[in-house]
């Protein structure tokens, strides 16, 4: 796919910063995050929970939960700045230009309304259709997401669907006004493993057919490897590495990504042991100076303790690591002993 095309990006996120004021001081949950997504492209965003990936997604759709707020940076969609729009303007973009899919299909649907009603309601909010036309479109969408017996299912309530079928309904809801971008936040995490592949395949097929770009937020590297064109790895609120998915998987440049890849079982390779990264991601209150990953890093040097690396070219990727800077990491240091 066109990863580095000359087309203007569909979504352009520049130096995004998300803060949470708390009684013990302000937490910076997303710090200086920049990336873009081309039309029709699937960008995987991967990281541990608390790395800031879901918050980045929420910031893009303009639904950060208070007291969280965008404290800096810009978000552009189709060339238009959207991070500072009034609520009503942003509402018109949500659903129409940006769709969203959340983690748990069991709780994403209002239990008291039939799925047909929820579809029709969304369609008519964004498109100038009559009730009858909207219902026809809703029916087509249900068929498209592969719900058997769609005609009769239209008037069923969410609790009458299985988890996988509900997530299909959620996808239909996200797609129903023809958005250019879908922010999918852990769309398969709450589902059975056997269903997960189906849903991912469905999402991928639909987006290709509709030319819709996807920002796929997940902690599952396997899903990313199968689905994404490019991948961004987040750690402690920042992007550690970003690049085409093949390069990141095969030739990870950031020690954190290397560790992450090492923890995926690889059926092709026999003797290799699964590696794991010692320690845990720091809490937002305790992010160390310098590179946030330094206490867990096997390749760190004296420079990593004091200077924070920005994204820099590293092979085909970009990585935020001094290993790829001409100046290097400085005097090598042993890994911090972790008394966990």
């Amino acid at each position: 796919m066109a990863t580095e095309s000359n087309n203007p990006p569909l979504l352009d996120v520049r130096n995004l910063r998300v803060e949470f004021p708390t009684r013990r001081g302000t937490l910076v949950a997303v710090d200086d995050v920049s990336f873009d997504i081309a039309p029709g492209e699937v960008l995987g965003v991967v990281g541990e929970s608390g790395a800031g990936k879901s918050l980045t997604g929420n910031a893009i759709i303009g639904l950060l939960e208070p007291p969280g707020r965008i404290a800096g940076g810009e978000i552009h969609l189709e060339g238009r700045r959207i991070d500072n729009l009034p609520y009503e303007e942003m509402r018109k973009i949500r659903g129409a230009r940006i769709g969203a899919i959340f983690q748990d299909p069991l709780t994403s649907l209002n239990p008291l309304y039939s799925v047909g009603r929820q579809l029709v309601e969304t369609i008519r909010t964004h498109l100038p259709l009559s009730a009858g036309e909207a219902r026809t479109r809703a029916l087509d969408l249900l068929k498209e997401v592969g719900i058997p017996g769609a005609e009769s299912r239209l008037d069923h309530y969410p609790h009458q669907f299985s988890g996988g079928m509900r997530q299909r309904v959620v996808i239909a809801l996200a797609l129903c006004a023809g958005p250019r971008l879908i922010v999918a936040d852990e769309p398969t995490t709450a589902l059975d493993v056997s269903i997960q592949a189906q849903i991912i395949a469905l999402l991928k097929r639909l987006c290709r057919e509709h030319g819709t770009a996807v920002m796929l937020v997940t902690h599952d590297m396997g899903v990313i490897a199968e689905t994404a064109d490019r991948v961004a790895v987040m750690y402690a609120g920042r992007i550690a590495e970003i690049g085409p998915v093949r390069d990141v998987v095969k030739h990870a440049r950031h020690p954190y990504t290397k560790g992450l890849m090492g923890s995926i079982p690889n059926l092709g390779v026999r003797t290799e042991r699964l590696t794991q990264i010692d320690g845990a991601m720091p809490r937002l209150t305790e992010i160390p100076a310098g590179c946030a990953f330094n206490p867990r890093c096997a390749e760190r040097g004296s420079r990593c303790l004091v200077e924070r690396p920005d994204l820099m070219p590293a092979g085909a990727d970009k990585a935020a690591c001094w290993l790829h800077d001409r100046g290097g990491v400085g005097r090598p240091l042993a890994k911090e002993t972790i008394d966990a």
Partner: protein
Amino acid sequence: MLAFILRRLLQSIAVLLTVGLVAFSLFRYVGDPINAMVGQDTSMEDREALREKLGLNDPAPIQFFHFIVNAAQGKFGLSYRTSEPVGRLIAERIPATLELSFCAAVFALFVGVPMGVYTGLYPRHWSSRLFQAVSLIGISLPTFLIGILLILVFAVWLRLLPSFGRGDTVMIGWWSTGFLTWSGLKALILPSITLGMFQLTLLMRLVRSEMLEVMRADYIKFARARGLTNRAINFGHALKNTLVPVITVTGLQLGALIAFAIVTETVFAWPGVGQLFIQSVQFSDVPVMAAYLLLIGLLFVLINLAVDLLYFVVDPRLRSQGGSARVAGH
């Protein structure tokens, strides 16, 4: 669904029988019914004859059976205090209580729910904080004190509204109504506010906390992500999801209204069953107490049945599952 209603109906009958048993025990074993009915100089033989005639020597289960059969026909014997049939005493006074409770419920619902929605949607707005503070005061003021203060201000100082009684009433069959005369309507205002105030604050606080809870739900966030208008989200999605607990509490509180009418009726000298009950407690008028208890039990059961049926209208999950449980049970 039919099975569910049938089960509820059976439960209701069980509750009624329990209440009936309490009422019967009261009626039969608290104080001596014979003493209350005859004079001091009645001989032992006459007393014994009366005892036999009234069936007081029958085995207790048979007496209970007779009690229930009589109660079902509205026969509760004679009041110790006025020697009138208890059934008639209650029938005369029930319209006053029901009209008062109805007005109070309407007041509480139509003021309390909108206030709750508003404070739930804009919890940080200054007027929400004001409503919250006022509601806390409303919950802390005992009903009778609210009544007295209203009387002091509107009846004693401003002389705008009457402080006691129902005003002029019109008889429609056996039902006396205060809805059809100007003075009857005016007389309803202060007692209705007094009686409804507690329920109003309760409803407001309930709707508020339910709204706050629902607004955090995933489907609300998803509805926002779908770009629905605030109007559709707040009233279409959020408010409807708060309805089940609101219906539950409104149902329970309707019963409580009728019971709290005791206090309001005392403050405003309102000629309803509550006032009758208080007089019967003060005079140990056991037949009236027993009958009142059964009446309240019956009203509670009817209200609960109505509430159960309303759940089916509101919540589709109950319609298909056969309704194993109330969604937001207590």
